[in-house]
C-alpha cells in the first residue's frame, strides 16, 4: 500500500521545497475536490501539502491597487467581506455558488480555479474582472492572466512544482459592475450546466464603453466571448443589444452532451444566461 504524507508548511519557500522534493505531492487547499478525487482513486498523491497555514495564502487585502485573494481563502470568508461584495457583486455571486454552505466553509477560489473544471463557478467571474494569478515555483514567482490559467478539463498552466499563491483583481473603474449567473436543475447543490459572467462599463452618457463576457460549461475551458462583448459596447444596453450579446454567446458555445445537459440545451441557455447577466450588470453599473 502506498504511504502518504501530510505536510503543513508555514512559508511559500517551504511549500516550494516540499513540492520539489516529491513530484507526487499535491497541494491541499480546501480539499473539496482533491479529497473526493483521492477517495475515488482518480488522484494518488504521495503527499498532501496543506497550504492553509501559510500566511500569504489565506486572507483578503483590498487597497487602491485592487483586491488580493490568498489562494487558500475559504469561499465563505470572501462572501462575508462587505466591501468585496459591494465592488464585485458578480464575483461574490460566483463564489457563493461553490457548493453548499458546508463546502463554502472549505472550498477556496484558488482551488476552484486549479481544479480546472469547465463548469467552475468562479472562473467566468474572474475572467470578466481581468484577474491575474500569482504563481510560486522552483523558478520563483510569475504572474499569469486568469484566462490563460486553465488549459483544458483538469489541466492548468502550472508547471511541475508550481502552485497558485494569490489572485489579483484590479479595482473596477467608475460606472463598472459585474454579474454572474449559472443554470442548474435544482436550486442548489449542482454543478453548472451553463454559466455566464458579464462585466460592463458605462460612459457618463450611459452608453456601454467596455464589456467582458465569459461563459462556462460549454467548452473545455471557460470562454471569453469577444463577439458578445462587442454586441454590448457602444449600445445603451437595451434589450436588443442584450439579445445580440446572448446570440453571440450561443454561437460561441461549443458544448457537449453529458449527464448534466445536452448540446442544444447548453447552447440555447448560454444565450439566455448571458442576456440576463448582462441585464443585471447594466442595472448595477447604472446604480453606481
Amino acid at each position, binding site marked *: *500500500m502506498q504511504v502518504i504524507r501530510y505536510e503543513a508548511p508555514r512559508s511559500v519557500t517551504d511549500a516550494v521545497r516540499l513540492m520539489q522534493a516529491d513530484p507526487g505531492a499535491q497541494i491541499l487547499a480546501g480539499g473539496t475536490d482533491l479529497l473526493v478525487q483521492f477517495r475515488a482513486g482518480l488522484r494518488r498523491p504521495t503527499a498532501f501539502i496543506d497550504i492553509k497555514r501559510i500566511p500569504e495564502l489565506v486572507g483578503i487585502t483590498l487597497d487602491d491597487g485592487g483586491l488580493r485573494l490568498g489562494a487558500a481563502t475559504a469561499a465563505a470568508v470572501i462572501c462575508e467581506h462587505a466591501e468585496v461584495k459591494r465592488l464585485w457583486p458578480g464575483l461574490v455571486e460566483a463564489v457563493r455558488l461553490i457548493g453548499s454552505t458546508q463546502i463554502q466553509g472549505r472550498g477556496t477560489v484558488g482551488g476552484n480555479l486549479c481544479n480546472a473544471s469547465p463548469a467552475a463557478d468562479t472562473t467566468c467571474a474572474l475572467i470578466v474582472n481581468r484577474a491575474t494569478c500569482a504563481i510560486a515555483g522552483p523558478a520563483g514567482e510569475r504572474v499569469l492572466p486568469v484566462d490563460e490559467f486553465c488549459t483544458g478539463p483538469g489541466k492548468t498552466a502550472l508547471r511541475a512544482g508550481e502552485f497558485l499563491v494569490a489572485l489579483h483583481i484590479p479595482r473596477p473603474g467608475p460606472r463598472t459592475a459585474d454579474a454572474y449567473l449559472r*443554470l442548474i*436543475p*435544482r*436550486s*442548489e*447543490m*449542482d*454543478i453548472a*450546466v451553463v454559466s455566464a459572467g458579464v462585466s460592463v462599463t458605462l460612459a457618463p452618457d450611459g452608453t456601454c464603453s467596455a464589456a467582458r463576457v465569459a461563459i462556462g460549461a460549454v467548452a473545455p475551458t471557460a470562454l471569453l466571448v469577444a463577439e458578445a462583448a462587442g454586441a454590448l459596447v457602444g449600445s445603451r444596453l437595451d434589450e436588443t443589444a442584450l439579445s445580440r450579446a446572448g446570440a453571440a454567446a450561443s454561437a460561441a458555445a461549443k458544448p457537449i452532451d453529458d*449527464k*448534466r*445537459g*445536452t448540446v*442544444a*440545451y447548453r447552447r*440555447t*441557455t448560454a444565450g*439566455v444566461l448571458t442576456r440576463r447577466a448582462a441585464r443585471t450588470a447594466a442595472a448595477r453599473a447604472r446604480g453606481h
Partner: protein
Amino acid sequence: MSDRTFTYVGTRPVRHDGMDKVTGRANYGADFSLPGMLHGVVVRSPHAHARIVSIDTHEAEAVPGVLAVVTARDIPETRAKLMLGEGALDLRDISENLLARTKVLYHGHTVAAVAATTLDAAREGAARVKVTYEVLEPVMTIEQALAANAPILHSDMITKGQHGAKAPSNVAARMELKRGDVGNGFTQADVVVEREFRTPTVHQGYIEPHACVARWGEDGRAFVWCSTQGPFAVRDQCAAVLGMDAAQVKVIPSEIGGGFGGKIVVYLEPLAVALSRKARRPVKMVMGREEVFRATGPTSGTRIRMKLGATRDGTFVAADASLYYEAGAYRGSPAGAGMMCLVAPYRIPNFVIEAFDVVVNKPKVAAYRAPGSPTASFAIESVIDELARELRLDPIDLRLKNAVVEGDAAPFGPAYGPIGLKALLEAARRHPHWKTPLAANQGRGVACGFWFNAGMNSSATVTLNMDGSAAVVTGNPDIGGTRAAQALMVSEELGIPVERIRPGVGDTDSSGYTDVTGGSRVCYATGMAVIGAAQDVREQLRARAAKIWNVDVASVTWEKGHAVPPKGAEKAEPLSVNDLAAKMTHTGGPIVGRASLYAPMAGPGFGAHICDLEVDPETGRSRVVRYTAFQDVGKAVHPSFVEGQIQGGAAQGIGWALNEEYVFDKNGVMENAGFLDYRMPVASDLPMIETVLIEVANPLHPYGVRGVGEVPIVPPLAAVANAMRDATGIRFTELPLSPPRVLAALNHEPTPVRTSDELSAVKADS
C-alpha cells in the same frame, strides 16, 4: 370506533427516542464496533452483463492484513423458496444477488468480499481479486429486453402466467385484470384519450448507507448488528442463504437511517457472517454512497400504455392499459401491484389491464414506498387530466364523479369497505389552494393515489413495572416515530401517562416474530398487537384487583386507569395501576401482557395532491411554489408523524417527477451514482407542504388506523406533470421533467404559456 373519544391517541408528545437523536447519541448501523473487528469490502462487477469465467483470490489473500475472502463457492447453492412476511422469495435469486455464481447481471453486482485488519488493506485485497469475465451485451431497456433476439438474462426463465409459454424469455411474468366488455365500453365513449408513459429508474435515497457488524462464534452461532427494516427478515435470509438454523442467528437492529423499502433486502449481512466465519473475527461492512446507488434499491423503470374513455358528462366507461415494469436483474418487479392500483380509485365498468415483469441488467429492484403504484398513477392521472380538458370539466369534479365509494368492487375483486376518497376530494375542492389565482408561467395540477396498506405478522409485549410505569417492546425498527405511537396506544389502554411508557425495539431473541417495518403496517398491525398486549395487562390487573377484594373477577370493571369494585364490595376502593403494580408480587407475580397476530391488509388508503408549479419558459427550470396533500389516514395516532409521513412522501414524489433518474452509459454503467448528480430535492427546492388529514376509521383496527406511509408518494408524479401541462400547455409523458426535456418541448412546439385567466375559464365551465 370513529365515534370513540381518545385521551392520549391524537396528541403530540415528544418521541421517546428523540433525545438520543438530537444529541447524536443514537446508534445507527455504522456506529457499532467490536474489539478485534475486521473491515469488510465488496468486489463488484465492472460489467452490466457478463459470464464469470474464473475468480482467483490468491493474490488478495496474500495482501498483509487480509484474513478472509469469500465468493459464491463459500455459500451453498440452493433452489429453495423462503417464506417471508410479504411472500415467497426465491432463495437462489437472493443468494446469487449476494454473490454472483455464474453470471453478473448488473454493474456493481457482488462477486466477492474481502475482510482485513484495516479498511485500506481490505480495499487493497479487493483490488487484487482477479475475475475473468466473458462480457455479454447488456439489456438496459424494456424494448431491448422484449426484442426478438434479445440476450437472455436467465436461460431457465419461462414467462409465468403465459399459458403455453416454453421458450426462455426476459419476461418473468404476465398478469391480467379484466372487467366487463372493453370493446363495447369504448363504443359508448364520447371522448377517448390514449398516451404512452415512461418513468426512469429511481432510488429510495435513504441517507444512511447499508451497514452491519457480524460475529460468528466457534459454537456456530452468529450475531448480526445492522440497520434494517426487519431484523427477522435479516435473520431468516442469513440463515437460509448460509444454510444455518434460524435459532443460530441473532439479529440486533440499530436505529435505522431511512429505508423506504430499500432496507428489507439483505446485501451485506450474509457476506459479513461468511467473512467472520472464515476469519474467526468480527467483521464490519459499510457501503459507500456510490455502492448504494449501483447495487441497492432501486425501483422499476416503467413503460405504460394507458387508454381511457368517458361519456360527454365525464363518466368513465372503459379503460385499456399495458404495464411493463423493469425488475432489474432478477424477477419480481411490482408490476402486479401497479396493475391493481391503476384504476383502484375509480368506478370503471369495463377494463382490461395487462402487466409484465421484465428483467434487465440493472440492480434487482427493491420495494420503494407503495411499490408499483406511483408510476401507474402517473399514467392514469395524466390521462384523466387530458380528459378533463377535452370535456372542459374541473379535474376534481371529474374525479369526484367517478370516485369509488364503500361497496364498490375494487379492480382486483373484493368490495371496498369504508373509504375516504370522496371526502378528501371534496375537501380538496373546498380548500383555498384550489381557488387561489395563479401568476404568469404558473400552472396547477391535481392527482389521486391509492395504496393497499399491508397487515401481516406482529408481536408485542407490555411489561408493567412495580412503580406503575411500563415498557412496550416490538420487533419493528422505528423509522418515523412508531415508538411514540405505540406508547400512546399503551397509554390509551391502561391510562398510564405516555411519558411513563418506555417503548423499545427488540432484537430477534427478545421480541416475538414481527414482519418488516414497511407496507405502512406498523401502526396498524403491530399497533393491534400493542393494544392487545396492553389489554392483556389490563385483564391481569382486573384479576389482581378481584383477588385483593376477594370478589369474582367478572364483577370488577375497568374505568379511566382504575380497577373498580362491584357495588357494595366491602372496604373496596377503586385501585389505580400504581396501586396494583405495587402489589404485583403479592398478588401473583410479574405482569407481562403479550399479543401476536396475523393481520389482513389494512384496507385502502387514498390521497389527493394539489401542486402549483412555476416554469421559466427560457430555461425549462421549474419550481414547486405551493403544495397541499389530502389523505384518508383512518386515525392519526400521533398527528405530527402522520403529517411528516405525508410531507416526506410528497417530497420524494416531487423529486421523482422533476429531477431524479438513473443515467446509464451505453455499457450499462450508472453515470450519476452520487448525491451531486442524482438530484434529490434539497431544502431550497421545496415550499412548505400543507397536509389535510381526513379520518375515515378502518373497521379492522380498534382505533381505525389505516396506515399512512406509502400513499403520499403516489399522487405527486401526475400532480406535478399536470401542473406542468397547465403552465406550459404541453403534456409530458416521460419523467423526469428536467429542464432540458422541458425546454426542448417548449421550443419544438411553441404552445403559448397558458395564463391563469384561461384556467379560471375552465373552472367557470364546471
